[in-house]
C-alpha cells in the first residue's frame, strides 16, 4: 500500500514538471515511465497512473477555479455545454487526465512485461 502511494505521488510530481516544461501528454507519459522502471502489477500500474494524474489534474483545476472564483470556469462550462457547472468542468478535466494516466501506467507495465 505504501509503495502504491509513493508511486502515485511520484507520478503526480513528475507529471507536473513534465507538463510545465513540455506539453500536456508528457504528464500521462510519466505514469508510463514510472511503471516501466518500477515493477508492479498491471492493476497497480493502471491505478497509480489513474490516481496520480487525477490528483494532479483535480488539484490544479480545483485551485485555479477556487482562487479565481470561477471567473473563467463558468464561461467555459457554458461554451462546453455543461450549463455553467464549474464542478462538471473540473470533473471532466480530472477524468480526462486520470484516464490518460491510467492507460499510460498500464501500458508501462505491459511494456515491462514484454522484456
Amino acid at each position, binding site marked *: 500500500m505504501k509503495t502504491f502511494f509513493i508511486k502515485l505521488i511520484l507520478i503526480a510530481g513528475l507529471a507536473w514538471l513534465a507538463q510545465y516544461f513540455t506539453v500536456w501528454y508528457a504528464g500521462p507519459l510519466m505514469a508510463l515511465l514510472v511503471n516501466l522502471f518500477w515493477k508492479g502489477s498491471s492493476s497497480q500500474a493502471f491505478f497509480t497512473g489513474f490516481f496520480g494524474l487525477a490528483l*494532479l489534474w483535480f488539484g490544479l483545476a480545483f485551485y485555479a477555479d477556487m482562487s479565481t472564483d470561477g471567473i473563467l470556469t463558468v464561461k467555459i462550462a457554458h461554451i462546453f455545454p455543461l450549463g455553467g457547472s464549474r464542478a462538471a468542468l473540473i470533473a471532466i*478535466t480530472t477524468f480526462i487526465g486520470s484516464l490518460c494516466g491510467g492507460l499510460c501506467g498500464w501500458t508501462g507495465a505491459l511494456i515491462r512485461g514484454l522484456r
Partner: protein
Amino acid sequence: MVLNGSALPPVGKFLDPVNGFWANAEKDIPKQKKALQSDKLHGEVSIVYDERWVPHIFSTDARDAYFAQGYVTASNRLWQMEFQTYASAGRLSEILYHSAGERILNVDRMMRRNGLAESAKASLKSFENDPEANMIITAYTEGVNAYIESLSYRDYPVEYKLLDYKPEPWTGLKCALLLKYMAHMLTGESDDIALTHQLNAYGADFINLFYPDFPVDMKDPIVPEGTVFEKDPALLPQADSASTDTLNNIADIAVTQLPFEKFPEGYGSNNWAVAGSKTKTGAPILCNDPHLALNFPSIWFEMQLSTPDYNVYGVSLPGAPAVIIGFNEHISWGVTNGTRDVKDYYKLTFKDESRKEYLVDGQWEKVSIRRDTFYLRGESEPFIDEVIETRFGTVVYDNGLTKDESTKNLACTWIASEPSNELFTFVKLNRAKNYDDYAAALKHFNCPAQNFVFASKTGDVAIWQQGGLYAFEKGQGRFVQEGTSSDDLWPLKINADYTPHVKNPERGFVSSANQHPTDSLYPYYYNGRFEYFRNRRLNDELRRLTGITVQDMMKLQNDNYNLLAAEALPVMLGYIENNAGYEKYLSIVKDWNYYNDAQQAGPAVFQHWWDSMVAIMFDELLSGDLEYQIPQQYNIIRVMKSHPEHVIFDYKPSANKKETVKELVNISFKETGKYLDSITAAGMELTWANYKHTSVEHLLFTLKPFGRFNIQTGGGKHILNATADRWGPSWRMVVSLEKETKAYGVYPGGQSGNPGSKFYDNFLDKWAAGEYYELWYMKSNQEQSKPVLFTQKLFK
C-alpha cells in the same frame, strides 16, 4: 464535433490544468513579466499600470514609446488585434473554415474584393518611404513581436486555445490593415444600388420627396448655416460646369438583396467643444463619444504615452500606433464619422460573356485580372478567386458570391481602397501644441472622412471635416451610373484647405453628430445618410447652457431625450382613433415625456409602434426581392404631414382598399398592442431597457458566454446617449483644458482582452450607469497620488 458553431478544441490539450485554458484564469492582476530586455530599445522604459489597469508608458524617446505601446497592447489584447487583421486581410478562412465553411470564405472574398488588403499594402509602402512613419511602424511591430516571442502555448490568450491555432509574427502590414478595417467599418455601407432601384421604379419625384439631398428645413449642420465658403481655386473650372446632369446617366439595374449583413442604421458619434466664454472655469471643454459596435474585447485600449517631447493620454486602437482620441498638455481632440457616401457603383458594358474587355469612351479596353488565394483550414487545396479590375473599380459581386447574375457587371470604386497614411494624422495630433499643428496634422487623412473636433489651452475651439473629399458634380455617385465614359470617373480631390471647417464661431461652441457638414451653399456636391436628430438636440442644449461644468457635459453625453419621438408621436397620435383593447398602451405613450430612460415603458411602446408603422408604409420595398433603402425618419415624418395620401402608404395586402397614413397608424398601433401583450404575458417587464436589450458580445459571436446581455441602460438610436441594442458610445470622454487638465472617461469593457480576468468587463456597469472615471494624467513615473498595481521595466 461542433460546439456552438465552433470546432471542438483538442480536449487533452485544452483541459490540461497546467497549460490549457485553466492557465488563463487570473487571480488578481493580469500575468505580466516584471522586466523585458530587448536590444531593439534605446534606453529604459517604465510602464506603470494604475488601479484600472491603464498603462502609463514613460520612455526617453519616441521610438521606445512606440515599441512599448506595441508590447503593452499585445500583452493585453493580442488575440483581438491579430484577429481583426485577419478579418481585414480576408484571411479568416485560415482560422475558421473548418467550422464555418463557405460562409466565412464569402466574407473573406468580399473583403479582398473591396480591396482593403491591396490598399493596405500600398499604404505600407508609403509608410516605409517616410523615415518617421517607418520608424514608428517598425518600433511598434518589434514591440508586439517581443511579446509574441516570449509566449508558449500556456500563455496564449484563451481564444487561440479554443480555436487551436497560434499567433503569427506581427508585421507593419498588419498595422496598415487595422487602419483599413476602421475605414471598412465606417464607410463600408452604400445605398447607391437601393436608391437606383427606387429611382427606376418610382421616379425622380419620389426620390426628391423622400430622399432629398438636404433636409427641407435644414438646421444645425456642422459648419453653422449661412457661412460663406471659399472655392478651391484649383477646381473652379470643373465645379462650375455643373451642367452635366448625371441623372441622365443612371444605370438600369435589378440587384436582389446582397448576401451580406447590413450595418445597423443610426449609429454614429458625438463630439463638441465649448469655448471658455461658455464654461464656468473659463477654459474650453472638449467631449467625444464615438458610437461603435459593442464588443469584447473592447475596441479601445486606454493608455498614456510620455516622452521628453510630448505626453499624450487617450484611447488607442489595438494594432495601430499612437493615441486616436485624447489630449496632451496643450490640446485635446476627438472624432466622429463624416458619414459621406464614398463608395460608388458603375455598370460596365462588356464586349461579351468572357468579360475580358469593357467599353470606355467608345473603345474596348482590356480588364486586368487579380488572382486572390485563400487558404482554407482543414482543406489541402486553397481557393482561388479571379477578380476583374477596371478603371471604374473592381467587379465585386460575381463568380458565385451572389446567385444574382445581374451583379456581374457592377464595378465598385471605394475611397478606402486608396493607399493612404491616416496614421500620420494621429501621430501629429499626439504632439500638437496649437491650432496650426492640428490643421497641419489633418492634411494626411484620407478615409474614413472624420469630423475632427479640437480645443486648446490657448482658448481655441474648432472642427474640421477631413478625409479625401472629391469635387463631385451635382448628383454624382448617388446612383449606380453607366460606366462607359471616363468623364464619369471620380473627379479631383478638394484641397484640404477647402473642406468644411470652422474655428472659434461666435456662438461659443463647435459640434458634430454625423449630420450634414454644411448647408446647401457649400460649393461641392456630396451625399450620404446624415443624422438629423442628435445634432439638433445637441446644439439646442449647447446654445441654452451657460457657465458649463464637466458635470453638465457628462449629463449631455448621457442625455436620453428622443427628439424623433417628440416630432413623430404628436403626428401619430393625431391620426389615432380606434384603440379598443389597447387603451393602456395609448395612455403610457401619451403620458411619456420623450426621455428614453431605462425603466420607462413609453419608449418601448413608441419604438415598436414606429417600427411597425414604417414596415407597413414601405411594405412595397420590404417585400420585394430587390435591395431597398427605407427613407430617413425625419423625411417620413415630414411626408406623413405633407402627403398623407401618398401612394406609398397604400398597404399591399388589402388590394381593393386604398390606405392613407391614418389607417397605417391605426393598424400598426393594434399590432403593437398585440405584440406588447404577448411579451408581457411571457413574463417580460415592459421597460425600455428590457425591450431594447443592449448587449456586448465577444468578437466571435458564437462564444456567447464571453458576452454580457440585457444591460440595463437608456438611450437609443438618434439620441445623444446612442446606446442601441448592439451599438453605442464606445468611449465617453470629457476634457477640461484648465491650467491643470481635468479629464474623465469610461468605456463599455475593460483593459484586458482575457475573459478570465476581472479587468475584462469591469468598466461596463459604470458605463451603463452613465458614470465616469477620473483619468490619471501622470506628469512623471514617480507620481504617487493614486494606487499603482504593477510596474514593468523594458530595458536595453
